[in-house]
């Protein structure tokens, strides 16, 4: 790699300054503040503050609801990532085989990405609404009693579908691009050697898509853990009986609605550690198996 040498020590810092400032103001500073707040017990108005050490953390780890949120987050994130990845890969493969209408389909499939998460959530809320929704009405005909305001499993299905639906477009774009970068000659050569479509997919397409898939896995996990807050908020609000209360939603509810800032800060610190940990694991252990 060619290394640029700057004569002055000053210039590189100046050039970096805007980015550093943004990182500091929008990430490091709030993160540090959350870290500090997690050791405090404060009333909502900030009139009385008391240092409680790890008290907030201790209380969290003894809290059944918090442990439940862990479990819910695990199920939710895995389900969203798997569903979003598999569906988008299938769609990308289908589009990749098209010749004439591929562009039209691509455009149509990317559309949902432009929908704001809160609106997407509301859309699904309408479709699945037990009283006024279309789907429960249709399901009743086939004998399924849909009521996600009481049935935790159904509520989980709803939020997974709503959250994954939005992410499918994004994944799809990357998969399409990834597929297009695979030289057709390789697949043709395999076809001439007598490999069927499935064999070609498993031995050529999928391994060559690995960098894309890996990247998307990381992005989707982070998406499911953080960006799904509006979807949950506009569909189930974490209910029924906390069946869809994921960690990041609990941070929001306890902090912004319950105004329990100490506990909320402690939760976001734990969440931050989890994401850092997950990313390290993904890069150290999974990335090794990915061949670029």
């Amino acid at each position, binding site marked *: 790699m060619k290394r640029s040498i700057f004569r002055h020590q000053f210039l590189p810092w100046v050039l970096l300054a805007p980015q550093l400032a943004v990182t500091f103001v929008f990430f490091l500073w709030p993160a540090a503040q959350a870290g500090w707040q997690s050791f405090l017990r404060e009333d909502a108005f900030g*009139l009385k503050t008391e240092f409680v050490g790890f008290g907030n953390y201790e209380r969290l780890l003894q809290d059944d609801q918090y442990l439940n949120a862990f479990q819910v987050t695990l199920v939710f994130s895995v389900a969203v990532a798997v569903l979003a990845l598999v569906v988008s890969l299938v769609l990308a493969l289908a589009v990749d085989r098209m010749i004439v209408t591929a562009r039209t389909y691509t455009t149509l499939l990317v559309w949902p990405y432009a929908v704001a998460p809160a609106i997407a959530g509301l859309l699904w809320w309408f479709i699945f609404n037990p009283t006024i929704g279309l789907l429960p009405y249709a399901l009743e005909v086939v004998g399924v009693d849909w009521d996600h*305001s009481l049935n935790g499993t159904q509520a989980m299905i709803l939020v997974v579908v709503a959250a994954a639906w939005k992410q499918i477009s994004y994944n799809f774009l990357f998969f399409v691009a990834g597929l297009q970068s695979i030289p057709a000659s390789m697949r043709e050569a395999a076809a001439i050697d007598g490999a069927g479509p499935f064999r070609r997919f498993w031995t050529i397409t999928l391994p060559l898509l690995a960098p894309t898939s890996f990247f998307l896995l990381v992005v989707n996990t982070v998406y499911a853990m953080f960006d799904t807050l509006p979807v949950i908020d506009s569909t189930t609000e974490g209910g029924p*009986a906390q069946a869809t209360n994921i960690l990041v939603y609990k941070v929001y509810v306890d902090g912004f609605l319950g105004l329990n800032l100490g506990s909320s800060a402690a939760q976001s610190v734990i969440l931050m550690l989890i994401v850092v940990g997950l990313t390290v694991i993904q890069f150290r252990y999974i990335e090794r198996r990915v061949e670029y």
Partner: protein
Amino acid sequence: MFRTLSLSALALGAALSPATAQTEIQWWHAMGGELGQKLEAIVADYNASQSDYRVVPSFKGTYAETMTAAIAAFRAGEQPAVVQVFEVGTGTMMAAKGAIYPVYQLMTDMNEPFDPAAFLPAVVGYYTDTEGNMLSMPFNSSTPILYYNKDVFEAAGLDRETPPTTWSEVEAFSKQIMESGAAPCGFTTGWISWVQLENFSAWHNQQIGTLENGFGGLGTELTVNGPVQVKHWDNLARWQQEGIFQYGGPVGGNDAPPKFYTQECAIYMNSSASRAGVIANATDFEVGYGMLPYYDDVEGAPQNSIIGGATLWVMAGRPDAEYPAVADFFTYLSSPEVQAQWHQGTGYLPITQAAWDLSASQGYYDANPGADVSIKQMTLNPPTPNSKGLRFGSYVQIRGIIDEEFQALLAGQKTAQEALDALVARGNVLIREFEAAND
């Protein structure tokens, strides 16, 4: 040249001076849609009625969002002079000594004529401290009542003018309605927490929490898992199984109103402030009104129902010049004319006796049958320590717990006793936490 400049500067100063002489106060509120328009009309009338002060209303979203915004603004030193806070936020606001300016004190300091006795005790009782001082200014208060579909009642062979008064009648009427095919469901309800637990307890004179439902101090504990509440939740779960009762969802119960509007459920319990919405949506049938049902074997029932809604809190730390404006505006707000206009336009309760009398003399209750059910029900008996209202810290979260445990009950995961026990245990953890943070 110099002369024209100084002249125009003078002219500019003259043009600005009336604006600077007028004190502006910010009012953050949570009234969207129709209610927001009615609120803004009141403010516009006030601003037009005098020239010293100007009130600037800003819509800040839901109740929870408005309260959170005000608290965040206070932490940043940018708080509004007046903020509308819902009744479950009362415990939090009250504990924030130093952040709030109690209304009784404001009115005394500003030498505003102010008579706490003019307000309806059932409304004001919710917002006074243990010494009887009014801490915030009641603005929009409502209480849950019973709505029923007169046409369905008649089709089922019931008297269309007689709403059920007891829970056994609710059950019997519902069965008759369902068996006759007049409607597929007996009843539904908004606000499980507020209607079927808090008001239910007050209506039956059952304790919600120790120390007068929390009015007596931060050391309070929930006791809402008594035998009467257990019996009622047990019945609700059974009625849901039998189809007599349909659940309308957590918090306000968004799915409940459509069930009543589409004539699926014949009886509906919700806030008296839902009246306008009910009338607007019940286009195909006639609506009747009644008081909340009670169990006639419970001694002391029916007692009186309690309110919900919101009050206006004055925040401390604003420039001194703003507080006379707030006091003057509050006097205007509680005047009988303004109150009667707000009450009749929205379905919220009048907060003063004078506003009620004025509405009556205007013939409002004769022209709108059912509009006075809420007031009659709320003032049925003088409030007892169990029916004055409730005041707990972190109550926004406890409301969430009530919904969760009710859902667990309906889903068959818990019995009524287990759900209410768990609710009390979880709620008390939050109350202890709040006590520790505020004591």
